């Protein structure tokens, strides 16, 4: 069985509108399946297009509505691509993000700092309660993704930590 022979078989399948072919011999096993999702092309010219036809129907995208969320979910941060090997700390509740325990105090953490698992890294104020958010890992703060005083929604990434 050489490529030329396989090509001959495929051409034969196209010409004969065959969908599937399995050939097993002691030496080899050949199985071919052609997608019939594409309607039979109008003329013999279409041999090429039949071969090019993708097997699965394309995904229907969600409707692109004019007024997509103005302040909708923030863009997803892909920890992997932003900072390879990093772990995300995300908001466990909805509220306002604060980097400092008090307006005139120093931030809990800065980029480059080392944090230990369980160390407080920020505060999220919700319903007048100041919730201390702890790091879930030990490592180096590589990125702070939210500005001080900004509202955050559930699951929004706050920090990228490189475990160390």
């Amino acid at each position: 069985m050489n490529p030329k022979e396989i090509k001959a078989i495929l051409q034969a399948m196209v010409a004969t509108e065959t969908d599937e072919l399995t050939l097993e011999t002691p030496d080899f096993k050949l199985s071919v399946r052609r997608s019939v999702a594409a309607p039979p092309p109008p003329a013999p010219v279409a041999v090429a297009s039949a071969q090019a036809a993708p097997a699965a129907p394309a995904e229907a995208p969600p409707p692109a509505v004019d007024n997509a969320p103005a302040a909708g979910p923030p863009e997803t941060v892909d920890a992997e691509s932003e900072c390879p090997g990093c772990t995300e700390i995300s908001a466990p509740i909805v509220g306002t993000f604060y980097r400092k325990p008090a307006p005139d105090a120093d931030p809990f953490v800065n980029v480059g700092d080392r944090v230990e698992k369980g160390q407080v890294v920020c505060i999220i104020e919700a319903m007048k309660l100041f919730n201390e958010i702890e790091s879930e890992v030990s490592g180096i703060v590589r990125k702070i993704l939210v500005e001080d005083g900004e509202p955050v929604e559930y699951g929004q990434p706050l920090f990228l930590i490189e475990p160390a």
Partner: protein
Amino acid sequence: MFKKVLIANRGEIALRILRAARELGVRTVMAHSKADADSLPVLLADEAICIGPASPQQSYLNIPNLLSAAIISGADAIHPGYGFLAENAQFAEMTAEHGITFIGPTPENMRMLGDKATARRIAREAGVPVVPGTDALSGIEEALVAAADIGYPIILKASAGGGGRGMRVVHNPDDLENAVLQAQEEARAAFGNPEIYLEKYVEEPKHVEVQVLGDGQRVVHLWERDCSIQRRHQKLLEEAPSTLPDDVRRGLVEAAVKLASHIGYISAGTLEFLVDREGNYYFIEMNTRIQVEHPITEMITGVDLVAEQFRIAAGEGLRLSQDEIEARGHAIEVRVNAEDPERNFRPSIGKVETLLWPGGTGVRIDSHVYTGYTIPSQYDSLIGKVIVWGGDREEAIRRMKRALAETVVDGPGLKTTVPFHKKVLDNAFFQRGAIYTNFIARRMSE
């Protein structure tokens, strides 16, 4: 009117509220779970904010996150939709405490009607009939007297019970003594408490409910809906008006207004009644929220109930007088659930790959589903409502049959209740209006 409303719900009702808000010029913030990030109301809203993971307990029932979302987005009102926190008096109270308007009844309204015993007492006060019955029975003697007074058949129920367990229907006095003893024994075995009470047994009742709107000053009704087509207490198909005689309908709506006025009801609400074959009606409970089936009332009255909820909550009061509310024609709603009617209505969710809703004369669609949408598994199975209007009941039935014949909601493994509704509409008893709460059990099971 409000500047910005937080919609604390999901699915079709979230979209319904969004539409009303948009027509009123109110900006919308969709509070949504992670599982609903791609849902149509989220895509359509002016703003969206994620309030928790898929689990309802941690998102749509998460009061702190919802209130925080309202606060940080600057919403001046919250609409709770139905289900979830819609009838949670504490949530309404906390919303108000944060200076945000809860679009719905007052916490007091909710509490007065929150449990059945209190609701029964208030109905009696207001002079509205409830199913005649007793408090906990002391013994056989009291049962015999009460049953004779109420008239047979009667039903014995466990005070601690629910869900049909420990219930016993008695058709004549000779059987009562044994039945009481057995019911007490069952109640003790099932609930650890032998206490039972006795009620009139309403045979083959219709479930009819009255839509009201109140602003604290006055209450108007928007006629009634017949919701007798139920499966295990889940409504499947509703129609407005009911097929009750006019005098019964009139008595019903007047009773509803009387009760709602009695407690100074605010916002949209529904009073549910059982109606027996003789046209006697008994108040059961009040739903202090907008309901799934509200569109059929909108179809016959032309009143936008959700917009009225907004207006009342914004202090604009009731715009309509009772005289101005005129019912015209007949409307039917079917609930399209992602359930397999062939397999005991078990959830049958998945991705919607082909979607074609019906259109044309007298057809309204309320659905949050679009082609390519994957129905999440964590929530109820309602994926859309097909609502039709016709000049009379017959036209409405024919129109609904036509509409369902052109409906396609398809995807791998996805089944809906559409085929079941077609059978209901074709049923001769249904067509002649012979519908009672046991219709599905009695007429639709092979």
